Structures are given as structure tokens and as C-alpha cells.
């Protein structure tokens, strides 16, 4: 049974560390749906969130192989427990004349903000689980979407679950 997984990785903030992770996925034929990475409050560490899918034994191998990389400090499969998942999307939408209030209304429903505008387009900023962002695009209609920039998923455990050294 193949399922979508969100895996969080703490790794040494060193040159080349990221390429090893990406290389591992390519080399072992694991798929990556999205990947985000940035330094943490401790600047010697980066935190990376990646979404992948696979059956249980594949995901077990993914986490074991990640752990084997020398620069990886910690690996947690967030999907094992309660967690919060967010993605940021910036989307440029055609918005002319009568469409403008309609687009604005849909953006409001999705708790999006209009962060830039021109006479015939809005740039909407949205955050939420990936499905919510997908749903927004469906609601607006693909034809109206001019450009999309998505951040990829970032995630954290709920409650007391803490990922630290």
C-alpha cells in the first residue's frame, strides 16, 4: 500500500549535504514530490522537509538510508504521528473587469491575500495543506491561472512532539 509521507530531516548545515540527500533519492529510485530546506535557529543545522510516497518497506528503507548519510543528524517520519503540514503558494491569476470581485471572493474564502495587482491580474498568497492549495486552483479554474510558485511542504509535529538534538 503506497501512501504519501512527510519526512523531516535535521542535517549539518554544510556545503554538499543537500546534494547527498537528493542524490540518494535519485540513486535508489525513491521519488520526491516536494522538498524544502532552510537553516534552523541553530545556524549549524538545516531542516529539510520532503514529501514522498511508497509502501511501508520502501519508506523504512528511505528513512534508514537517510540516517546513514553522515551529515544527517535526525530523521522523523511526521506522518507517523499528529502533525501540522503547511505549504505557501504565490499564484498570479487573470483578473479583469467583472472577474475581479469574484477572484477576490474566492481568495477570501481560502483565506488568501492579494499581495500584488495589475489592471488585469492579481497575485494571491495562500498557505495551508497542499490539498487546500490544489483546491484553490480548481476553484479559480486552470484557465485563469497565469503563474504558480509553490514552496513545497513544511511540517512539524503537534503538541509536545519535538524534533531536536
Amino acid at each position: 500500500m503506497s501512501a504519501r509521507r512527510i519526512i523531516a530531516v535535521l542535517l549539518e548545515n554544510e556545503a554538499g549535504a543537500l546534494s547527498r540527500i537528493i542524490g540518494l533519492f535519485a540513486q535508489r529510485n525513491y521519488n520526491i514530490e516536494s522538498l524544502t530546506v532552510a537553516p534552523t535557529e541553530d545556524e549549524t543545522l538545516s531542516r529539510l522537509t520532503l514529501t514522498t510516497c511508497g509502501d511501508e518497506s520502501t519508506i523504512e528503507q528511505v528513512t534508514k538510508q537517510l540516517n546513514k548519510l553522515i551529515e544527517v543528524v535526525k530523521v522523523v517520519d511526521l506522518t507517523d504521528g499528529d502533525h501540522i503540514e503547511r505549504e505557501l503558494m504565490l499564484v498570479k491569476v487573470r483578473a479583469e473587469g467583472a472577474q475581479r470581485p469574484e477572484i477576490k471572493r474566492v481568495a477570501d474564502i481560502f483565506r488568501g491575500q492579494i499581495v500584488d495587482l495589475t489592471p488585469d491580474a492579481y497575485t494571491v498568497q495562500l498557505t495551508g495543506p497542499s490539498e487546500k492549495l490544489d483546491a484553490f486552483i480548481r476553484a479559480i479554474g486552470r484557465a485563469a491561472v497565469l503563474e504558480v510558485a509553490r514552496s513545497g511542504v513544511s511540517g512539524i509535529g503537534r503538541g509536545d512532539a519535538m524534533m531536536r538534538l
Partner: protein
Amino acid sequence: MAEMLSGADMLVRALQDEGVEYLFGYPGGAALHIYDAIFKQQKVEHILVRHEQAAAHMADGYARATGRPGVVLVTSGPGATNTITGIATAHMDSTPIVVISGQVPTDQLGTDAFQETDMVGVSRPVVKHSFLVRNAAEIPMAVKKAFYIAASGRPGPVVIDVPKDATDPNAKFEYAYPKDVAMRSYNPVAHGHSGQIRAAVKLLLAAKRPVIYSGGGVVQGDAAEALTAIARRLDYPVTNTLMGLGGFPGTDRRFLGMLGLHGTFEANLAMHHADVIFAVGARFDDRVTNNPAKFCPSAKFIHLDVDPASISKIIPADIPIVGAAAPALTGMLGRLETELERNPDAIDRDAIDAWWRRIDGWRGRFGLDHDQRARGDAPLLPQQVVQAVYRATRGEAYVTADVGQHQMFAAQYYLFDEPRRWINSGGLGTMGFGLPAAMGAQFAFPDAQVVCVTGEGSFMMNMQELSTCMQYALPIKIINLNNQALGMVKQWQDMQYGGRHSHSTYKDALPDFVALAASFGHAGFRVDTLPELEAVVAEIFSDKYKDRLVFLDAWIDPDEHVYPMAIKGGAMNEMVLTRNGGPAPPP
């Protein structure tokens, strides 16, 4: 006052402080500051090879024979890329080597400078780890970490890429070699979990048809003694993988021989019918399991390995134990003694005796040389050559092999009673490995008998090293099982491609190997009949040639195949046993 050294001097000093005996290398522009630093000292001996691939195999052979990391030094670009096959070979077989490559100066990185290759990038999929030195001050710590990472946990190759400016002889830094190293991101496990060990012992004791299946992890993990003690205490049968030979004494009656694709009838059958399989330092490679779906249908698996990623990767383990082989097996042995003290009848002796009777029946009917026995004298068979070498060296030599039929014959017919004596490229299957690996072993043990069993195809992939052997007076004995063909390829073509020998022969284009050896200053012999064999082999291993490299060109039956051979996609009990014999009879 701290000592002030240049980056190049620090690098060489760090190698000295690490206790490095040999550097296998080849110079070039980006490494010249380092070469100058080597020139000014005597502690680390540099061995000038003839091809960088061979340098990596030499370091690997040294590492396999000693357990200590082998070290390579090469220049940037082609020097670095030439080592890749050697690095990948070490990676697949988990052996500790450290490869130091020169690199273009930092300010030229990424400019497609002369002899620039992204060595860290090119080697990335085949290393355990790599370092790009950013400035000279990092050198001592990079060396310290490289050796630590290469040799600890599941060993493997580590690359240190050193830009030329970091070795500038005019820029001096305070030198101190770090005493120890702690890395928050790397903490290999040592002892196995005691609860798991208890559970494993319980399952082992309850077994009625047990098999111990051990691999390279036992050899590399210096656990042969502990494994042997356990197997003997229990009186259970043991089979070894190609990488694991010598992990249990080959002459012990409990030894079933190698298992897998070319494993013995009794080893493969015992696996197939086992109820408990104890896998130690083995990784259920496809050359062992054949079809995982049909693999050992009635067995429960205990799997001990230092690398958690090896456990349950191919075959789910019932009792996984993550740990280094030696301490975990010692822990198991202790636990076993406690259990047996408490309950001396814990082992079902009747069941084990019955199991041994079955195994001995298989061994008696279809053991390794059942077919050979019936074939008489001519032509000379490769198996006979290996057996003659075995007798002449009393089974005590370091034996390296290349890749092909000759490798399998050596693995099947030379019985290893000690670990680290059998040195071959099991995982990557690298033709060209044998000679340089033998050189590494001979450098490690100058007085030991070192034999390279090769095939004419493999030998020609690194034969330039005969010149290096001359320069350093290495008395290796090379046994060339000459079948005038890429025999293993030809065997597959015989068995699976209707005998169409597409590009697997070169009969009329082979060199005169005796003359070839002589041209490098070595001794050469040729043999092609059984009656001559014993005398020739005795001579080349006699005192007369104690200090010389000897090349024995043994012309063997070109049509011989390696058997048993597992039937593709089958279970472990499905094998072809002889050329015309077809599949093995159902036991």
C-alpha cells in the same frame, strides 16, 4: 609553541599520525605540493603505481588483508576519475579506504579549469562520505574524520578532495592532530540490543533444521572467532557467502561451502529446507537469494548486521539485531552458555542429528567434485589447478581473485580456515581487481604467500602493474586460468543464448604470457596437462622462487562451466549440477 606547517606538510603529518604505512599513488599538477612534502619524509612509504584504478584496488587489498584503511593519493581530473572503479569496488564490499585527490585551486573551482573534475560529485554515489577541503586549517580534522568514518560502523571508502592552494608550501598554520573525534550526526552502534540477543538465542536453541549463513561482515568485523565458537558449541551447519569465506574454517566438517548462484548443493539445499536461518553480516544479495519470493520458504530469520539498512531490505527479519558482529556474537555466546547451563537439553539433539544426516546425504551424492571425480585426466581442469595450489600452499595463502569462472573455482576449491585470506570483488565484480589487490596484501605482509588467481581477460585489465611489482620486488604468484575466453560470459551464452558466443573470445589474439611476464623481469611458466601440473606448482612455490613474482599460465579446458549454477528466477534448491545433467533431482 605549536608547530607551524604548510597544508601539504600537515596532510602528510596527519597521515603519519594516523599510523599510515603506505600511500598508493600517482603524481600530477594539483598534487605536486603534496608530493614535495612526501619527498621530505620517510615515515609514510609512497608506492608509485602505473594506473590510479590499481592504486585504489591496492589500498583495498591492503585494507581487506589487515583491517586497517588503505590510502590512495592522486591528482585532479583524470587521476581522480581513474580511481572511481576502485572506490566503487570498495563501496560495494564495505572496505575502508581513504582517497586523497588533488583539486584545482579554490579560485578556479567551477571554471572548467585544466584537469578540473567535480570529484566530490563524481564519487558521491560510491563513497561512504567525502570532504572538500575549503582551507588548509581544516586538513588535520578532515583526515581524522576520514579515517574514523572509513573504518568504523559499516566500513567504506572516503574521499578527501584538496584544492592546490590549500597545500601551498608558503602558507603555514599551527598543526595539531586531533586526539579523538566526536560527530553528533554519526554514531555507529556497537553492542546488539540484549533483548533481541535473548530472543535470537531462544529461537536458535529451538531450531530443528538450523543454518548459520555468514557474510563479509564477519570477516571485516573480526568476528570469525566468535562465530566459530557459536557454531561449534551448537554443532550447527555453516555456509558462507562469497564475501564471507574464511569467516568459518573451510575444513571444519560443519562447513557446507559457499551458498548462492554457484554455491554447493548441500549449502543451497540446507538453506532451502531450514527452519531457522541465522544471517550474520550478510545482506541477502540477489546472487544468494535468487528469487526472493521463493527464498527459504519455511525459515524464520535472525539477522545481525551493523547496518540497520541491510536488515529487512530484501527478506524481512523475524529477529533483527543491529550491532557490530564481534561484540554482538560474543554477547550471544555468553547468553547461549547461560541457557545451556540452565537447561542442558535445550537443543533437540535428535532433530539436529537427523538434520545432519540429511545434509551429509546431499553432500555425499552431489558434493562439489562429484562430477570431476568421474572425468579422469585430460584436459586440464581449472578445479585441479586450484586444488594443486591449495595443497602447495597448505591452504594458508592470501588468495585474491579477479572476476569470472576462475573466481568461482577459487572460491569453491580453496578452503579458507582463516578470515581475511580470501580477497575478491564480490559486490561490484570488478575485473582487474586481482593483481593490484594481491599487491596490497603483499605490501601488508611482505613474508606471506600471496596468490592471485586470475583469468586472462581480467588479468589484461591491470597487467601494467607487473612493472610496479618489479619496482617493489613483490613475490606474488599469479595463477592464470587461461581458457582463452571471457569464460563466464561464454558460459551464460552457452546456457541462455543457444551457444552464440557474441564477443566473448579472442583466441588468436592473446599474448604469450610467459614471454610477457619475462619482459617485465618476472618468471613465467606454462602448463596444460594434469601430469605436469603438480611438479610445476611445487616448483613455483618452492624456495627457488621465494623472492620472485611467478606467472603460471595454466591452459585449461576452454569448455568447462562452473557448477552448481542456480536456475534463474528459481528457489535455492533449483540448480543445474553438471553440463549434461540438467536440473538437480528433487531431494
